[in-house]
């Protein structure tokens, strides 16, 4: 897998109310096969940054290098998973969705279906290969989306709050599943979330961003061994530390009180 370098990246949004800085002077080095979570309140530029790495947005200044190669638009070295369940193509079955990237790549039919079956097995959906998205639950649709982003074997996986719209129980399952998938595939992952416990559960390193303008405020390494126990003391300590960084920004002196806010 490959490292990602984010160098002096800035982006300014042109809105009717004037120019609004999206992200400002962001510098990040992400190691090969590293799982990085970016957390922060709404408007801190975390999704903007992800979209720049994905190539959907062009930075006003700075550059992104993936495996040493400068990013110029979207490319098949990156797989993207969005928050919206509607990202799947309703006119294609789960299998058809997963084969899409391989089809674009020109992989022969038999081969791409074999790979798609494998990917769907990885996300535990091998019984639903022939189902259309509207027959799948939200959690299942997001699993198809993950399989779809992995199928054409990108070296980087970019995830924008993929589980934010799921209920809490499903979200726990999905986090466990994603941790497993990551262990098996060893992709370099950038995962955007506003859920602190999710970040501590998944990440090697958590980046805290703050808004106006979106900048990196803190980086916290999570050296806990996997699988992680969300109720262990160490886990909760990291969670507290993260909340302290976030709570400071919301102006409260009582960091634990912001738990609900940061988690919402």
């Amino acid at each position, binding site marked *: 897998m490959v490292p990602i370098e984010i160098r002096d990246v800035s982006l300014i949004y042109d809105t009717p109310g004037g120019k609004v800085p999206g992200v400002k002077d962001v510098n990040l080095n992400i190691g090969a096969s590293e799982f990085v979570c970016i957390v922060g309140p709404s408007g801190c530029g975390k999704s903007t940054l992800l979209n720049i790495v*994905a190539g*959907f947005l062009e930075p006003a200044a700075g550059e992104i290098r993936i495996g040493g190669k400068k990013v110029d638009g*979207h*490319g*098949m070295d*990156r*797989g*993207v998973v*969005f928050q*919206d369940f*509607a*990202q*799947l*193509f*309703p*006119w294609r079955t789960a299998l058809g969705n997963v084969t*899409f*990237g391989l*089809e*674009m*790549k020109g992989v022969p039919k038999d081969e791409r279906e074999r790979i798609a079956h494998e990917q769907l097995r990885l996300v535990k959906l091998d019984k639903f290969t022939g189902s*259309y*998205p*509207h*027959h799948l639950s939200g959690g299942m649709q997001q699993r198809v989306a993950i399989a*779809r*982003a992995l199928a*054409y074997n990108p070296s980087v996986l970019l995830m924008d709050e993929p589980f934010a719209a799921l209920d809490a129980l499903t979200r726990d399952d999905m986090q466990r599943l994603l941790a497993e998938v990551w262990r098996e595939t060893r992709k370099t992952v950038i995962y955007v979330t506003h859920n602190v416990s999710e970040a501590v559960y998944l990440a090697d390193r958590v980046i805290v961003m703050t808004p106006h303008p979106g900048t990196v405020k803190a980086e916290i390494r999570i050296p806990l061994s996997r699988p992680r126990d969300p109720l262990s003391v160490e886990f909760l300590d990291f969670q507290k530390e993260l909340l302290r960084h976030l709570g400071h920004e919301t102006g409260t002196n009582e960091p634990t009180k912001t738990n609900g806010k940061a988690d919402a």
Partner: protein
Amino acid sequence: MQDAVTTIMVDRTLDRSQGGERIRLIARNVFPFVVVGGIWEIIAWSGIFPRRLFPTLEEVAASFVQLTITGILPHHAIETLIRLLTGFALAGIFGVTIGVLMGRSRRAEDIFLPLVSIGAPIPGLAYAPLFLLWFGLGNISAVLLVGFVSAFPIIFNSWTGVKAVKEIWVRSAQAMGADDRRLFRHVILPGALPYILTGLRLGLAQAWRILVAVEMLAAVPWGLGWLIFGARKFLNTDAMLAGIVVIALIGLALEKFVFQKIENYTVVRWGMISS
């Protein structure tokens, strides 16, 4: 064991109630026709209109059977159907192409939208004399007019459909390496299909309206419009009504066996619209 018996009994009751449901559904659909038919018969028998101008349903049915057996009605119907489908096919091809182009390209939108916006509200029949002068009496005028007039709703809906394709589908497809051509074929077209089908359906209704009217004007030798119009000379109201019945039946058949089938196989199966 007890459970099994109960289950079977429950199943039976379910079956019966489902059968009853179906009969009730049919009854509900048939009821308005029975009422209108009854009123029709009362007027026909009451002598308010001369019987010749307001035949009873039996006479219409007899005339329908007679015209069908002699092959006159099928001949008219086939001529009309060929014109309808040729004109509609033209409208479909050009309408979808122009509409999709408008949705995809700003320049095409700038060129076509004003033209289409002005052209669409004009009643199709207003163009008829022009087409008859340009292309003469007969099939060519009829087919071209049908194609021209029914293209408008198809253009509008295809355009809207392309505009309504979700940005997230486009982004996903691009992230997975789709170039413009394949984005169009694998995302834009299926994504816009619910709207395109609606446009085609409206276009077909439009095609019917203009075709029957123009058959009355264009002095074509065969066709349902001509049958209905021509029958007035001989006060053949039963033949007129038989022609109207055939129009209704063809319309119903196209809706049931073409449009609904296509929808069920595509957008309904994909959950993009509910059946």
